[in-house]
């Protein structure tokens, strides 16, 4: 028998604590029913759990303990946002001012004289030609390229030799050459030497700030005269001699 006088209180405690299985609960209740003197103890054990039913009273601390939440837009946030807005406005103003100045420079470029434009174009061609010189030429095989009627005369002699040397910048490969031959289209290729000779180096260059880069130093630098200086007429010399028909009024003259 697991229940006895010496341990019945522990079993009652375990019963009300909810630590017993259903079988143990049934056995305990059965044992108590067989021993009515234990019913009083059993009910007193039950009364020790009355504290569980007590409701929570309000101690009035809630309002004192609550912390006020920080404002959504604090002083730091406002200052930071102001700084950001100021930076945006400043950058926008700078950009607007920069675009305005670009428009003005565009207008000055459009007012260039025809001679200035020519000089500038020539210098640009020189720069482009310099770039072509630096590029290694591509050598085509003799078998793939045959001299034809559409081919320029300057190239025919090269093709008859072991190979033809074309500048890489022309970007004409074997397939394009053959295709053009089949369609009897004239090959629009200029030999490297011809390209070089077409663009003479100008002797006179008008220096502009944007055209000075990578341009060979010209032999003579001519600063163009302004329009006002060119249009300025020389004042006629003053002749102090009197005319022949001049009669002086002053008798002392």
């Amino acid at each position, binding site marked *: 028998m697991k229940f006895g006088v010496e341990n019945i209180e522990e079993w009652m405690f375990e019963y009300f604590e909810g630590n017993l299985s259903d079988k143990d609960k049934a056995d305990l209740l059965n044992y108590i029913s067989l021993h009515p003197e234990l019913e009083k103890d059993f009910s007193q054990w039950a009364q020790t759990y009355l504290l569980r039913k*007590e409701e929570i009273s309000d101690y009035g601390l809630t309002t004192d303990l609550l912390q006020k939440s920080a404002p959504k837009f604090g002083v730091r946030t406002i200052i930071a946002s102001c700084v950001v807005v100021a930076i945006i406005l400043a950058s926008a103003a700078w950009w607007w001012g920069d675009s305005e100045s670009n428009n003005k420079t565009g207008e000055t470029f459009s007012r260039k004289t025809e001679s200035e434009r020519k000089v500038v174009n020539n210098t640009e061609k020189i720069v482009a030609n310099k770039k072509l010189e630096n590029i290694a030429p591509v050598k085509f095989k003799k078998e793939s390229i045959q001299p034809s009627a559409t081919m320029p005369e300057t190239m025919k002699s090269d093709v008859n030799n072991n190979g033809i040397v074309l500048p890489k910048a022309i970007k004409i490969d074997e397939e394009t050459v053959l295709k053009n031959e089949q369609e009897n289209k004239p090959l629009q290729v200029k030999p490297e030497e011809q390209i070089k000779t077409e663009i003479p180096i100008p002797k006179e260059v008008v220096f502009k700030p944007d055209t000075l880069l990578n341009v060979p130093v010209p032999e003579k630098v001519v600063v163009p005269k302004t329009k006002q200086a060119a249009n300025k007429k020389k004042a006629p010399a003053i002749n102090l001699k009197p005319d022949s028909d001049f009669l002086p009024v002053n008798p002392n003259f």
Partner: protein
Amino acid sequence: MTPHEYNLSVKEFNNRVCRFVDKILMDRNIAKDITQEAYLKLWEKLDTVQFSKVRAWLFTTVYRLSMDHINRQKRFVSEDYYPQSFTETENPDLKQIIEDSLKLLNEVQRSVLLLRDYEGYSYEEIGEVMNLNEPQVKVYLFRARKTIKNYIGDLGFVL
């Protein structure tokens, strides 16, 4: 834990925590002071305390603060608690008698009983709050209930 979660813990637990301290110390005003002190500590350690464990943290803190308070009081007053309400009232409420019987318990037994009955804590949770193991919690709880049961039996109150 965020300030919002702190406020949630205040709304949810402050009365429970204060009641726990009130029942341990049998002094409402000191209970309120200790509860406020615990929440002040919680606010200071907002970054280290997780919201999921704030309840256990609060009860652990107030339990330690209560024990410190009792230890300080014992230096000056060596008077045993004894329930007076029964002798003062002719027909006391049974609930009131049980509350008065808490005065017969020592602080540890009382704390275990309050955490078990008021807060519904398991043995393990009570052990975490009070730094005890589960068998110790069970023993303290059994002794506390037996003391209350004997007190009720002496008064002759039976449901």
